[in-house]
Structure formats: structure tokens, C-alpha cells
């Protein structure tokens, strides 16, 4: 406890907390859209390529260039994913291909690097000592850009993400927004790679939003909850990691996971209560694809 309090007074810890707070804000804002678009795997792929970019920059230009390398790697690959649009099955295989390639490159760069091993390890599992004043500036710039773009484009982005056919019919540029969203996601992922590490970026971009989705179907409330959950996970994770002197990512991932479990339980209890309250189940014909199967599904079925 006293160790934790002592460390909280240190400048580098304060900087880490500040960086973590910005990262959690961006993750919470983007997370519901990522979940709505079914892009969890794309986030993972982006983070591995961001890792490769960071590792390459570390090898070629030293520790000061890691942030830029991570950003370039993430944005490049995000552009590829964004251009693929929403065709899920094709997208997944391309992500798998790029992800493994990126991971391989990253491992190569790291093996060739002969400097401090903490620099290498940090890209995979996160580090807080790595955040210096320069990083804070790039973090703040990324934060302002992401929030600014969201303020302007949030409604069309939400429309295009959750109801693409209708959005296209209303003249929303679905393709262009897909690319723009991927760039925002890439920039945020690159920050995440430097703070929580490439392996656990998902615990911030997916888990809080997935937890929030269990509690509410309101996009606004889901976003607020996702931000809160992400903040709790990051700030809590950083503080909890101080005394044991362990990497922060297991703590961040652990807190996020427990939040998710709790939300899942609450959500399923609520659904059960709602189901027992409402009238006859009316969804028996909802998903049939033709009138024939609609008729078929109305025929008596044995109930177990």
C-alpha cells in the first residue's frame, strides 16, 4: 500500500495515468462502433501490425521512434481493412494473413534489436515507464483529432455501421466512412500498443463495449458505459500494477474481464425477467427467409 502511494507521487506514474485516461476515453468512444461493425478481429490484426511497426522503428531509429512506427503500421493496415468494407468472411481471412505476417516481422525486428530488453517487451505487454512528455503530446494530438472527427461524423458513422443498407439509400458515403473509421481505429490502437501492449489492446477496445452492450441497446448509454468501464480498467490496472512491479496489461485485462462477466450476468437476468413478463413468443416467424419456411415453422414442434 505504501509502495503504491509512494509511486503515485512520481511524475512518470502521473504521466502514465494521464496517458491511460486518454486512451481509455478513445477506446470507450470507438468500442461500441467496433462491436457494432463486428471488427474485433480487425482490431487484433491492427494491433499486431502496429507492434511490427513499433518494433521496426525501434530497430532502425531507436526508442524515440517507437510511437511513430506503431502509428504508421497501424494506420497502413487499418486502411487495408477499411477498404475491404463490411464483407465479413473475406475480411477475416485477409486479416488472418496480414496479422501473422506482421507478427512474424515484429519478432524478426525484435530479435535483431540489441538494446534494452524492456523496450522490446513493452510493445507486447505494455509499459508505463515508457510514457514521456513527447508521448503525451502525440497522445493529446491523437485524442483531439479522434474526438473531433467523431463529433462531426458520429451520426453517419453509427448509421453506416449498424444499418448499412439503409444508410447507403439515404446517401451516406458508407465506403468512405469505413476507411475513415479504420484510420481512427488505427491511431487509437497505436496508442494502446504503447501503453497496454499489442497483445491486450482488445481488452480496451472490445471488452468494455461488449460489456456495455449487455446492459443497454441505447447507443448513447452504451458509449458512456464503455468509456466508464475502460477508464476503470486502465486507471485501476495501472494503480494495481505499481506495488507488485508487474506489467500493467494483466491487471487491465483482468478488470475488464470481470466487468464483462458482471454485465453478462446482469444482462441475462434481465432478459429472462423480460421474457417471462411478455406475451406469447412472437418471434417464431421472424427469421424465416421465405413464406414457405414461415409456414413450416408454424407447424407444431415437440417441446423439450
Amino acid at each position, binding site marked *: 500500500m505504501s509502495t503504491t502511494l509512494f509511486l503515485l507521487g512520481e511524475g512518470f506514474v502521473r504521466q502514465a495515468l494521464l496517458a491511460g485516461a486518454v486512451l481509455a476515453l478513445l477506446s470507450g468512444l470507438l468500442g*461500441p462502433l467496433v*462491436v*457494432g461493425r463486428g471488427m474485433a478481429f480487425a482490431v487484433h490484426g491492427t494491433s499486431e501490425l502496429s507492434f511490427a511497426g513499433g518494433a521496426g522503428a525501434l530497430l532502425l531509429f531507436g526508442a524515440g521512434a517507437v510511437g511513430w512506427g506503431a502509428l504508421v503500421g497501424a494506420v497502413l493496415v487499418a486502411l487495408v481493412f477499411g477498404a475491404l468494407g463490411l464483407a465479413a468472411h473475406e475480411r477475416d481471412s485477409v486479416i488472418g494473413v496480414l496479422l501473422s505476417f506482421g507478427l512474424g516481422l515484429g519478432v524478426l525486428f525484435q530479435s535483431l534489436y540489441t538494446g534494452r530488453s524492456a523496450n522490446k517487451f513493452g510493445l507486447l505487454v505494455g509499459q508505463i515507464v515508457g510514457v514521456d512528455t513527447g508521448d503525451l503530446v502525440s497522445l493529446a494530438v491523437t485524442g483531439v483529432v479522434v474526438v473531433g472527427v467523431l*463529433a*462531426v*461524423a*458520429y*451520426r*453517419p458513422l*453509427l*448509421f453506416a455501421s*449498424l*444499418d*448499412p*443498407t*439503409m*444508410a*447507403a*439509400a*439515404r*446517401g*451516406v458515403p*458508407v465506403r468512405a466512412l469505413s476507411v475513415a473509421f479504420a484510420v481512427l481505429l488505427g491511431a487509437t490502437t497505436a496508442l494502446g500498443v504503447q501503453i497496454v501492449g499489442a497483445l491486450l489492446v482488445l481488452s480496451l477496445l472490445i471488452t468494455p463495449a461488449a460489456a456495455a*452492450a449487455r446492459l*443497454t*441497446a*441505447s*447507443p448513447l448509454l*452504451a458509449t458512456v458505459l464503455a468509456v466508464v468501464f475502460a477508464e476503470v480498467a486502465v486507471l485501476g490496472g495501472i494503480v494495481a500494477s505499481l506495488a507488485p512491479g508487474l506489467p500493467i496489461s494483466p491487471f487491465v485485462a483482468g478488470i475488464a474481464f470481470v466487468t464483462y462477466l458482471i454485465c453478462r450476468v446482469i444482462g441475462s437476468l434481465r432478459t429472462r425477467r423480460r421474457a417471462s413478463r411478455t406475451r406469447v413468443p*412472437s*418471434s*417464431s*416467424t*421472424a*427469421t*424465416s*427467409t*421465405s*413464406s414457405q419456411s*414461415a*409456414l413450416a415453422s*408454424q407447424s407444431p414442434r415437440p417441446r423439450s
Partner: protein
Amino acid sequence: MAEDRTTAVTLSGAELRRGPRTLWSGLDLEIRAGEFVAVLGPNGSGKTTLLQVLLGLLPLSAGSVRVHGAPPARGSSAVGYVPQQRSLDPLTPLRGRDLVGLGLDGHRWGPGLSGRARRRAQVHAALEQVDALDYADAPVGSLSGGEQQRLRVAQALVGDPTLMLADEPLLSLDLARQREVVDLVDRRRREHGTAVVFVTHELNPVLPVVDRILYLVDGRFRIGTPEQVMTSENLSQLYRTEVEVVRVRGRIVVVGAEDAPVHHDGPHAVREEVGAR
């Protein structure tokens, strides 16, 4: 301006080509305010493409199109659109009222912080029109196909359109739900004078409310009232094969058209979905 009030759509000499294929040409059609026009025809005959033209998503190859006296504008709130019934993902993070709200301003840029109260009132009114207030706060993915399609109608009505375009909105609904959706659309056009262009495979669910039919087959077409268009002679000419039209108890049954040799360029030659471009 007088023309704007009474004429919703004017197509003159309209032609649409996709690659080497001409979907239709020489199409002259004027749709009055409050008129219900059903668009019939086999897959790939350019029904959905016609809606894309009216939505301003696709230009004509020749001829002219005007919606309310002006060229079609993307995202115009004067035009409402109802897509095919396709059940939404059960985990779609939207409530019914969010889905309807997206129909109102989902295409607008900016934070949209002003006019929240007015927006809420408009969404409420649209939900009320389709009698969907009971489940407006439930996740859309948890609703039945009929309930989802009511929300789709509300989504199209929320901008207070004077032209409503519907693309196979009855597909995969059972007969009772089909009738409900048709009644909603019919009530809207009677009470508000909204013109309706209703693309459908099946004529019978809309037969009681339809004013005119546009029947498209492989570049050929007929326009007129159901009595004028739905004759054995007409359809035999359209399909270029022996087709018989039989009237049974107020229903129209077409025999022979389903196995008529209708030209297809494969499933991807003509996209059947407005969103897929």
C-alpha cells in the same frame, strides 16, 4: 410550384443500361401525389434499379427523371425508403426509437446537439403512426420480423416524406404481417397524400390498394391499372411465352410466368440491393 404538389415523380424517355444490357428504355411515367404504384417483374428486370434512380444513387443512361420537379437528391427528407425485411442481428445495439431516429438525421454531419426535443417528438410521432410505441425501447434484434418491418416503415415516415419508395418490404413476412405493412403504407398515402412506389414480387397483398402497375420484364414494360395490365395477352407479350392470368376470388394468379425464359446475367450482374454498390 403547382406541379410540385401534384406530381411526385416524372420519368420521361428514361433509359438505364448496365454494361451491355439495357434494363429498360423509353420509360414515361408520371406519378401523382397520393398515388400507389406497384412495380412488378422477375428478378433482374431493374425494379430495384428504378428505386436507386429515384433515390438519386444512380444516374439514368438517357432521358430525364424528376422528383417533386427537381433532379433526385441523395438523402432528401422528402423521400422515404423501406428496405426488404431482413432480420437485424440480435445483438444490434439499437432500440426501435434509435433506428427510427437514424432515418431522420443519421445522414447528417455535425454533433446534432440542437433541436433534441423536436427530434424526440418527430420520432415519437412516427412510432405512433405505425403503432410501435409498445416496443420502441426494446433492442431491435429482439423483435419479430413484423415488428421490425413496422419500425422500418416508421423510419421511412419520420422525415415526413411526400414520396415513399418500398423495395420488397413484404418478403419473408407471413400473410397477416404483410397486410399490416400494406395497410400502414396505404393509410399514410391517403392521410398525407404521399406517393408510393412499391416494388414487389407478389401483387395480391397490395391489389386492394394499388392504383397503377408498372410491369417490367427483360426491357419490356406495361403501365396501367391492374385491370389494364394484368391480362393474359399483355403478360404473354411481356414474357414472350404463353402466360395465363386467372382471377380467383379477388386474387390474380399468373400461370406460366415463373418458368418463362427471363434473361439473367448471373447473380451479380444486377445488384438487387440498394446498399450494394
